[in-house]
């Protein structure tokens, strides 16, 4: 059977491009699979799969399986690490249909022409997408924050260039999952609540602090700390000048030589280990790490610094290579992501979705109250896979969704001086 499939796939491959070949091979295999279980005359022609690529934050097996069931065509996901994802999105847009990317990479992705404009008229629930990504303000008095906030990266003018003058008909990326990061700490070790980014550099915690070792984001956390201490005022923490970078790095080098930093972490797992093993008292952290640390029986609180958190926002963009049927499927997949079920799925991992009202419909009230409304859990709550991760009575750190996202200090960004930043960051590490 298998050999037959391979052979027919090989025949089909003659005179075809690689992309067609892959599609046909998949189809042939699918036909074969169907044929082996049902009578021969009942052959179903399966659709070409929609291929999506991103981080494990959104590219999840269960999500793709559900999408395939709901949509009637297969969705295949590839979850990569950040660097690999970035490189693939930029350089191989014939290898995916949907990029589950991040607004902070738009300065690189959009001018490269790797993605195509998305027509908001084809996005069914476009009017339900919240204002966070449209105007930058969830409520009129929100602080939109510095850096690559989605509303600065989303709109396209008539020539397909990004514009700050939204709303327009075409966009770069359909907003999806997002969250805000801050500092995680063990209250037993710090002995007091952490309320400011400046605490990252407080001498009480010398030798008990870890920073995120991704230069683009790590510098922003450090910048917020330095600014909170009143040592400097950055014009835009999301796009620092060389002299601002120099001042920041010099400050960090002094701190490093004082032995202030215990370690620098690069992966989620490392940040969890640092806290559970008692190596650090506080560290810059991604929010799902708090849940993982608590699951190990170690106390951990996610700080809600008065200066605001550092936000990040993911979403879906479409490869510039896509057209015809494949493009239609891509829009269907994007619409499906906004339908509510996927948002409810990622909500149980602590991520927010751009269409809160649709998520509310798909999420039981007790779960909605906890994850979005910032209320105490009325009962034990599960993660997406059914394991209990929230005990009864617990309150989510950082308040409600609207509180959290009304005060974003800075959004993840790629700065114009990125190369200089990476270089200076390495000087800091090797100091």
């Amino acid at each position, binding site marked *: 059977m298998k050999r037959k499939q391979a052979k027919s796939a090989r025949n089909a491959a003659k005179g075809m491009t690689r992309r067609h070949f892959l599609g046909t091979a998949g189809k042939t295999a699918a036909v074969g699979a169907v044929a082996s279980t049902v009578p021969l005359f009942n052959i179903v022609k399966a659709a070409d799969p929609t291929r999506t690529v991103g981080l494990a934050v959104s590219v999840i097996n269960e999500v793709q399986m559900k999408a395939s069931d709901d949509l009637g065509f297969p969705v295949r996901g590839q979850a990569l690490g*950040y*660097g690999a994802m*970035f*490189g693939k999105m*930029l*350089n191989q847009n014939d290898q995916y249909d949907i990029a589950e990317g991040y607004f902070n990479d738009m*300065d*690189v*992705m*959009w*001018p*490269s022409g790797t993605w195509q404009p998305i027509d908001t008229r084809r996005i069914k629930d476009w009017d339900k997408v919240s204002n966070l990504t449209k105007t930058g303000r969830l409520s009129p008095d929100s602080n939109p924050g510095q850096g690559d906030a989605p509303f600065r990266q989303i709109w396209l003018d008539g020539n397909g260039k990004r514009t700050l003058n939204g709303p327009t008909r075409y966009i770069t990326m359909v907003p999806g999952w997002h969250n805000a990061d801050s500092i995680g700490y063990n209250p037993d070790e710090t002995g007091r609540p952490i309320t400011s980014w400046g605490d990252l550099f407080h001498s009480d915690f010398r*030798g008990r602090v*870890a920073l995120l*070792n*991704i*230069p*683009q984001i790590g510098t922003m956390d450090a910048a917020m700390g330095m600014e909170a201490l009143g040592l400097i005022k950055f014009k835009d923490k999301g796009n620092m000048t060389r002299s601002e970078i120099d001042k920041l790095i010099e400050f960090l080098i002094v701190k*490093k030589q004082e032995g202030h*930093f*215990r*370690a*620098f*972490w*690069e992966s989620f797992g*490392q940040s969890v*280990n640092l806290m559970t*093993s*008692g*190596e650090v008292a506080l560290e810059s952290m991604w929010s799902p790490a708090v849940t993982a640390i608590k699951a190990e029986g170690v106390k951990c609180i996610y700080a809600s610094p008065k200066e605001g958190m550092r936000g990040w926002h993911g979403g879906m963009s479409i490869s510039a290579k896509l057209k015809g049927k494949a493009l239609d499927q891509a829009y269907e997949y994007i619409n499906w992501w906004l339908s509510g079920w996927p948002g409810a799925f990622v909500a149980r991992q602590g991520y927010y979705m751009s269409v809160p009202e649709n998520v509310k419909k798909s999420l039981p009230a007790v779960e909605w109250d906890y994850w979005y409304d910032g209320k105490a859990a009325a009962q034990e709550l599960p993660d997406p896979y059914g394991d209990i991760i929230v005990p009864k009575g617990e309150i989510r750190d950082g308040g409600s969704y609207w509180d959290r996202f009304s005060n974003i200090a800075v959004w993840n960004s*790629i700065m*114009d001086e*990125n*190369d200089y930043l*990476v*270089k200076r*960051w*390495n*000087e800091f*590490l*090797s100091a």
Partner: protein
Amino acid sequence: MERTVLPPHPGLIGSEAIAPEFIQEDQLKKFRPGFSAAWLVAPSAIWLVLFLVLPLIFIVVISFWNYSLSGMVPGFTLEHYVEYFTSSIYSRTLLTTLRYTFTTMVFCLLLAYPIAYFLAMVVKTYKWQMSLFLVCMVPFWTSYLIRAIAWVPMLGRRGLLNNVMIDFGIIEKPATFLLFSEFALTMALVQLYVVLCIGPMFFSLAKIDKAIIEAARDMGASSLQIFRQIILPLSLPGVAIGMIFIFVMIMGEFATAVVVGGGKFSVVGTLINQYAATANYPRAAVNAIFLMIGMMIGVVFIMKLVDIRKQL
């Protein structure tokens, strides 16, 4: 030109010395006429060209390309090379990497040689030699990363070592230099790579014909003389191969610096990784090229010290 194919070296582990039976090369040629040796070499040659030579050429090519935030642009610029030489961070990182590598190699040599010597010379039976050698390979049964991470509960603030020292009253507060420090990094690198050099050292020591040693002893040589004049020179190729192995691997290593060094050290691997993460491939390529040049110089240097070919 008359060439002869040498018989297997007598005294290989487990084999009794076999009387050499010289085979003429033209005798070999009669074996399966018309079958060219090129066919045997072809698969690996094609493989290497496709997946080693071409990518290497490509690395060199893109190191001259222009880079902007929106990706690479084919072209020719020396900008990345100028940057490499005008900013001290790159060469400093390379030197740091060399320093860790060299320290680790010294410790590996000091540890691995006695172990290999013990296995080859002191352990008498083949069965025990092999079982103990396999024991040395046990660490390879777990993933490399797990071996590195296992140092955290050993050396951490609440780690085994600190607990023991506090319990015995040697220290009052947990010693923090044990983990996320140069000490931790060197120690972990030694532990990770020492097993790699035991292998080649063991094989070259085991190959030494015991009859030579016996003869020397009969002629009244002291143990030290035997070691210095017979065992050491004959085992040097194994030492060199072991050193080349770990030299090349440690130079390109960056995961240990992250996990055990706590990311506090910048090595060439981390630098390349960070440039690649934002698709600045030209700059990553320049760093990779100089890393490779550093590696090649190191390997040539080791080969100059020991003529591997001659002594194998």
